[in-house]
């Protein structure tokens, strides 16, 4: 039962907050630094080149780029005497040299020798039985005064030993360029001087490529979403919230798709993730939890006082994808990702290079600033900023293979 998590959503500045704000951010400064190996290792029952990420801790005041551990020897040894070795690809990412999948009844152990020569070993881990996602539902609900679409997951009935679930998601959404125009000004045939009366047929236009009209963007979950069946009536996960999208979010504007990954974990792995999540979660006077080091199942050979972060997790995975958009709910169409009220009007007839909003300026906007043509009224030429006229300036215009319209 995730009772503590519910308690934690409470923010308590209460009375003080009534009168004054009581919580303020401050700049983090490392008082004393500890260099520790960080292991992200989840192998699954998917047949693939399994991935393991290694990095090291870095100082609090530094940005978000960790120090990657690139020169480690990484291998997984099984109880049936197989050894899978891993090679460094890039940025601390190691991939197994051969494809393999975790199998039930076999134990797996992770071995790492890092660049400092320290040898780490995990405990033996087993693959929990697999449980499929039955369905993914959406529901329009109000959370803390904010209306949004809640994505809920239901698993199938589990066997008794599958109790601990972890979720990740990948959301992909379609972006229809808001101010798409079928033509572009042909800059190759740009004329600095001279014009037709009323600018008819001048400047010259060419058809705009279609791939600037529709794009796709993908986000990955970055919070820890764990649950368990302890304390529940049912032997399945039902209506478990994995993602809440406020109705105003642009991702709902055109078509939206979410891929939910369901991992079945061991109790220890689940606890590791849960404690990590709680330590980084909302804090308040009610649950001013004692923080501390969270130990996983990996330790340094011969010296268990030395720290190493991470849990070698052998999980079974199932995934399911759904599609929807705003129109399936009784809500207004969300705004475009960017504000596109900034439609600019330029005078094509003003050919003096120094003229304000004249032809020279138009050329500069189109060629240097990437502005997009948006039609004209006689000599008044309309242009829009690049992200309003061409989604490929900020998202991918390649249609994902899984995409269904």
């Amino acid at each position, binding site marked *: 039962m995730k*009772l503590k998590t*519910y*308690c934690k*959503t409470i*923010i*308590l*500045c*209460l*009375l*003080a*907050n*009534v009168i*004054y704000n009581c919580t*303020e*951010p401050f700049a*983090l400064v*490392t*008082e004393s*630094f*500890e260099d*520790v190996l960080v292991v*992200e290792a989840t192998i699954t029952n998917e047949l693939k080149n399994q991935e393991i990420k290694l990095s*090291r*801790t870095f*100082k*609090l005041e530094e940005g*978000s780029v*960790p120090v990657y551990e690139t020169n480690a020897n990484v291998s997984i040894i099984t109880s049936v005497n197989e050894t899978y070795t891993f090679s460094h690809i890039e940025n601390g990412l190691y991939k197994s040299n051969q494809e393999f999948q975790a199998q039930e009844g076999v134990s797996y152990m992770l071995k790492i020798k890092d660049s400092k020569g320290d040898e780490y070993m995990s405990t033996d881990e087993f693959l929990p039985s697999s449980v499929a996602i039955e369905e993914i539902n959406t529901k329009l609900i*109000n*959370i*803390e*005064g904010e209306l949004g679409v*809640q994505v*809920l997951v239901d698993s199938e009935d589990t066997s008794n030993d599958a109790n601990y679930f972890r979720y990740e998601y990948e959301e992909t959404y379609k972006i229809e360029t808001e101010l798409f125009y079928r033509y572009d000004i042909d800059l190759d045939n740009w004329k600095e001087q001279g014009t037709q009366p009323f600018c008819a047929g001048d400047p010259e236009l060419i058809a705009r490529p279609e791939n600037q009209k529709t794009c796709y963007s993908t986000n990955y979950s*970055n*919070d*820890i979403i764990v649950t368990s069946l302890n*304390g*529940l009536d049912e032997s399945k996960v*039902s*209506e*478990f919230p994995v993602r809440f999208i406020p109705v105003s979010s642009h991702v709902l504007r055109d078509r939206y798709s979410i891929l939910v990954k369901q991992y079945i974990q061991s109790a220890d792995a689940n606890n590791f993730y849960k*404690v990590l999540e709680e*330590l*980084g979660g909302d*804090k308040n*006077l*009610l*649950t*001013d*939890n*004692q*923080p*501390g080091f*969270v*130990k996983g199942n990996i330790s340094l050979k011969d010296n*268990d*006082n030395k*720290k190493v972060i*991470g849990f070698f997790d052998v999980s079974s995975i199932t995934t399911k994808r759904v599609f929807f958009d705003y129109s399936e709910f009784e809500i207004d169409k969300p705004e475009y990702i960017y504000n596109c009220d900034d439609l600019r009007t330029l005078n094509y007839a003003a050919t003096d290079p120094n003229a304000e909003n004249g032809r020279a300026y138009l050329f500069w906007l189109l060629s240097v600033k990437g502005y997009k043509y948006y039609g004209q009224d006689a000599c008044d030429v309309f242009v829009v900023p690049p992200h309003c006229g061409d989604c490929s300036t900020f998202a991918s215009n390649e249609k994902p293979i899984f995409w269904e319209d």
Partner: protein
Amino acid sequence: MINIPLKKMAFFKAIKITLVFTLISLKSLGQSQEIKTLNLNNSTLYEAILKIEKATNYTFYFENDWVNNVSVNENFSNTTIKDVLESILAETPLNYFIIDSKVILTKNSVVRDYLPENYFKVEEAVAKAPNEEEVAVLQKQYTSTNLNSNKNKVFYIGKENKNSSKKYFELSGVITDVKTLKPIENLSVFISGTSINSTTNNNGFYKIKVPKGYSVLETSSLSYGKTKKQIVVYGNGVLNFKLIEDTNALDEVVINSSKNENVKSVEVGVTSIDVKGIKNIPLVLGERDVLKVATTMPGIKTAGEGALGYSVRGGKVDQNLMLFDGAAIYNPSHFFGVFSAVNPFATGSVDIYKGSIPAEYGGKLSSVINISTKEINKKEFSGEGNIGPVTGNLMLEVPVVKEKAALLVGVRATYSDWVLKAAKNKNLQNSTASFYDALIKYEHKIDDKNTIQATGYFSNDRFSITSDSVFDYGNKLGSLKWNHVFNDKNSASLQLATSEYKFNIIYEGNFNRNFDFGYKINETQVKLKARYLHNKKHKFTYGLSSKLYAINPGEIRPIGPESIITKETVSKEKGLESALFLSDIFKVNDALSLDFGIRLSTFTALGKSSQNIYAANVPKSEESVIEVKQYNNNEFIKTYGGPEVRLSARYFLSPTSSIKASFNNTIQYSHLLSTNTTASPIDSWKLSDLNIEPQRAQQVSLGIFKNSENDVYEVSLEGYYKKMKNLLDFKVGANLLLNKTIETELLQGDGKAYGLEFLLKKKEGRLNGWLAYSYSRTLVKLDSEFLTNRVNNGAYFAANQDRPHDVNLVSNYKLTKRFSFSMNFNYQSGRPITYPVGKYIHNNTEHVLYSDRNKFRVPDYYRLDLGVNIEGNHKNQKLAHSFWNISVYNVLGRNNPYSVFFVNEDGQIKGYKSSIFSVPVPTITYNFKF
């Protein structure tokens, strides 16, 4: 009634003052005159005097009061007026003097016809009076001594006997309450500037040895404050008087009411809070808070503003036995600790035992905080109340049977909800926070030997900060006490007390996981305590107590048909804690007193229950359970116990200074489970069982106490060292609610605490107050052969409550009768925190790496509060006496960080510090009394 001519009275008064100067010239004028017969049967002294005046040509000069109630039953014949007067005045405190045909009666003093030898050194003689030779008592002696006391009345005790050379006389009397007329017991009575003291017995009777001549007799008690009476002692005598609870005047801030109690008492490490005095201390949000005042004394701390509980001498918040009229109160605070749940108007006294704990108390490791409600006014209807910005408070005293039985009702409630509703912040508008507490007390004096007292108390807090959950917590307690006096030497009391603490969480969110969670602890105690005053040297207290605990550790129920939460109940816990206690205050000699106490306590965890037995040599976990033992209802699961020694000694170094020492050991069988760095209202209690051993502590203290300038100044320095065993802590991220195998998350370790406490008090005068400083450390060690059960590699580290330096300055300046100013300054070392030593990325998200626990501290804490009290005028026609209090809390606007924490926001770690009152908080409160 007699009318002494005005002229005569004036004459008399003139004589009184000038008497001594005219005595010489009067010397030869006294002469005798024959009286033939005089029948004074069955007459009052007044009638007798009239008869003498008739029979002779003498004129008497006297005051009516002196002669009205004295009866005379004698006949005289052929005698002199001298003999008659000697005879009829023999049993009275009156003396006479004859000048010509005038008889002047004087009370107490002998009018002398000669000057005492050293008359002109009178000042010096006063100072040395008890040790000098006989000094004639003259009026001059007191008129020449300038007294601060506002009550200038002088009481004359006894009658002077010219032939007596005694230097000390016996003064006795009965002290009663002016309203209830009830004798005041345990009132200390003493002579200023000396170590002469006594206390009243159950009947309000006192007897005290007093030096001849002028003295100041003082009384002191918690409920009656202090009084002074000027006395001039001529001989043995009686002085009965009444005391009033004088709360209307601006009191001086007095913490230790008993004048020289700090030097005299045998106990070391005891703090008494003067409840009336706290109105002169600046308030936060208009609430007078008895317990907050306690934290300005050395050795008593909180984790910060808005933190629950008190840490006494390095103990944890669950290690204090907090008693409210004898019943334990589990969470005496509202609003997460911003307000205390103890009604200040109904509180009579607060005593905190942090060093020597009397043998009658036990079950908690660090201290006993004993809160008693006030004695109810049984004479007339009265009340007191206040209106502040957040709360309203009213207390009424209602006599039921006049002088015999009375009822006290106290209610306090908040109207903070509207404050929240008025807030601009949308989240706050959805919040609610309310609390109230109510108190009812009944006292009945059946006869001189039997009294009963019943107290009921209820408190509740309810708050909701997010729209989906509502939290509730509250105390409920009741006590019934019967006092019986067997005889002068033996008395006893029997008390039944019960207490309950519970909290509840209702979660109604958007999904199918709505639930209602409840926790409840209940305890019921029977205690029999008896006193036996064997003789002057030995005073015994003995008795037994037994307490039954019943805990419902948690029940969760689904709300609504959609909820998929399983109804689940963790089975009830039961335990019986019993003790036998005996203590003897042994007065070895005038200088040395010992208080020897022993408490034999035992605790038995009772079924029905199932207990896990874990494999040895591996960490406790659900996997290492090797056996589950089932116990039937009331079957003994495990018994713990042992002797608890409570020994203290006091030795007078001089009449105004003493040295004290004590040794104490304590055992605690019930524990607060908390994974928080500070306590929270939804922390639950757990009893010791097969897998959780009781906490144990031993403490030695040594203190030196000194009073000076007539007990106006009080200085003390105390040191202590405490060793603790089996302190409870938990693994990081432990889940304690509804956990059936809590022991797998538990870490039990050792602790040690030591410190020095200094206190300087000025108890009287326009400027008064105190300065307290303590240096204290608390260290904890969580070691184990298993890595998972080790914290900081098994070395000692600073406990959460460790705040080495603590300075408090509380002072009050009385400008006029109506205006007084108060000030409170506090400085404390910041509390320890666990601070990250780096960060890392895991699962696309930043996390921080925590290393050693409590290695860093939040910045030091300091705060200055100022207040002014403005008394209403004291016109009689006013319905109620009232005063205004204006306070500014945290005048310097110091942003004292309460905690520092790290939150994951969109994959990035952000550091935040929170504080409770980071800017000055002004408050105005209206107080009234009728």
